[in-house]
């Protein structure tokens, strides 16, 4: 299946106003209604949609308090949509929306949408560093620590679900949707990516009891660690609650910084994730804190040495 990755997450929330304020400060641009509901996009056109939880156009909520209502995947072409429709129709109800989006639920009841991707190709500079023994990447007289630099999410990176049967979900995404297993935490914790994505993961599953079912977090890729630190520090300065980070994960190598959000899930900035092709062989580790990060820092207010 020529699936590219998550293009849009749809939320049904308590307070659209609170979410609008949070997401704007997180760095996504609003393309929607005056009341703050609608779509919020990253630089490449992937993003989040936010509606009131009783909006009649939303799929029904999960039986927990998770506010995620739908995950929409971008696919390469109409041909793929046809294949998905045929494949999923074998054992579940599939609807085709007026805009061509194919909708169904996965094996744990998470609502899914598939549509031809609306991602725009990015042509942006990467983070550049100067490293001894290598040619400088940042030229002479170019400053790296620019406090005023824009630090905007470039693309929706991944989602993480709490699922009561991780093995069943893994089988669904691998066998039915053509995802690849990249790494695994023993006992339910597969990192998965769809066929047309080279990132270490776009979907991570955490085995949990039924009453936890829902969204653990979503993440957006930043230019690099410096933008991640800039964006995260600005969130802290505005009074948002840092949850975990900044730090660097082991599986995927991505830098991370998680914040609590009014969508009732963590919102993560990430940067510099590993990419792989089909020659990769999956690793496996027990799920424990030592294995989830190679280091963890904690933000503290400004400080400078003095005398």
């Amino acid at each position, binding site marked *: 299946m020529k699936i590219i990755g998550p293009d849009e997450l749809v939320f049904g929330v308590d307070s659209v106003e609170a979410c609008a304020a949070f997401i704007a400060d997180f760095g996504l641009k609003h393309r929607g209604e005056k009341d703050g509901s609608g779509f919020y996009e990253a630089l490449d056109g992937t993003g989040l949609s936010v509606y009131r939880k009783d909006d009649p156009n939303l799929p029904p909520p999960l039986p927990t308090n998770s506010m995620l209502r739908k995950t929409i995947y971008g696919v390469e072409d109409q041909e793929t949509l046809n294949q998905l429709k045929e494949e999923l129709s074998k054992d579940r109800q599939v609807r085709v929306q007026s805009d061509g989006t194919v909708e169904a639920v996965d094996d744990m009841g998470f609502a899914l949408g598939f549509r031809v991707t609306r991602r725009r190709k990015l042509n942006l500079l990467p983070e550049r560093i100067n490293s001894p023994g290598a040619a400088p990447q940042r030229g002479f007289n170019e400053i790296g620590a620019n406090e005023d630099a824009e630090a905007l999410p470039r693309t929706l990176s991944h989602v993480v679900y709490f699922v009561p049967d991780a093995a069943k979900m893994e089988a669904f995404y691998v066998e039915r949707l053509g995802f690849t297993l990249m790494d695994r935490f023993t006992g339910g914790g597969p990192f998965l990516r769809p066929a047309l994505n080279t990132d270490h993961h776009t979907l991570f599953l955490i085995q949990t009891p039924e009453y936890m079912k829902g969204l653990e977090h979503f993440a957006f890729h930043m230019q690099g660690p410096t933008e991640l630190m800039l964006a995260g520090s600005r969130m802290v300065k505005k009074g948002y609650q840092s*949850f975990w980070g900044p730090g660097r994960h082991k599986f995927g190598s991505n830098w991370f910084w998680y914040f609590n*959000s*009014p969508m009732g899930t963590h919102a993560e900035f990430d940067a510099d994730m590993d990419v792989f092709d089909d020659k990769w062989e999956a690793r496996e580790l027990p799920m424990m804190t030592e294995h989830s990060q190679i280091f963890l820092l904690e933000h503290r207010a400004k400080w400078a040495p003095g005398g």
Partner: protein
Amino acid sequence: MSADKRRPLTDVVCRLSDLEDGKAYGFDPFKRGRDTVFVVRRGNKVYAYVDICPHYGSTPLPWKKNAYLTGDAQHILCSAHGAIFDIETGVCVLGPCLGQSLSPVEIAISYEGDIRFFLGADDKLIGEPVVTN
């Protein structure tokens, strides 16, 4: 002499009149750089809890300063994964820590309306888990 009188109290953290009815407020009584306790006022009752969600056991609840309640202000919300808690008992009624409870902090409201927290013998807030890494 009652048992309460032997336990140390924090300084005054706020006055009852500072708290709006139906709202929640975070406090940092130990100057840790972030709020570690929060209170919810309902009428003349004030409920206080340690700002740690029982789901992960060491993480804060709000998404920003004082944002501890659901939109309808009827429950306490952990905005990390949406657990909701009964305001009066601290019990999680829906979400990832169903049936578990927030740790209550005992508070004292003086006749003048000064609010202080009781501390346990180790000078920590009562109910505050010891986080070891």
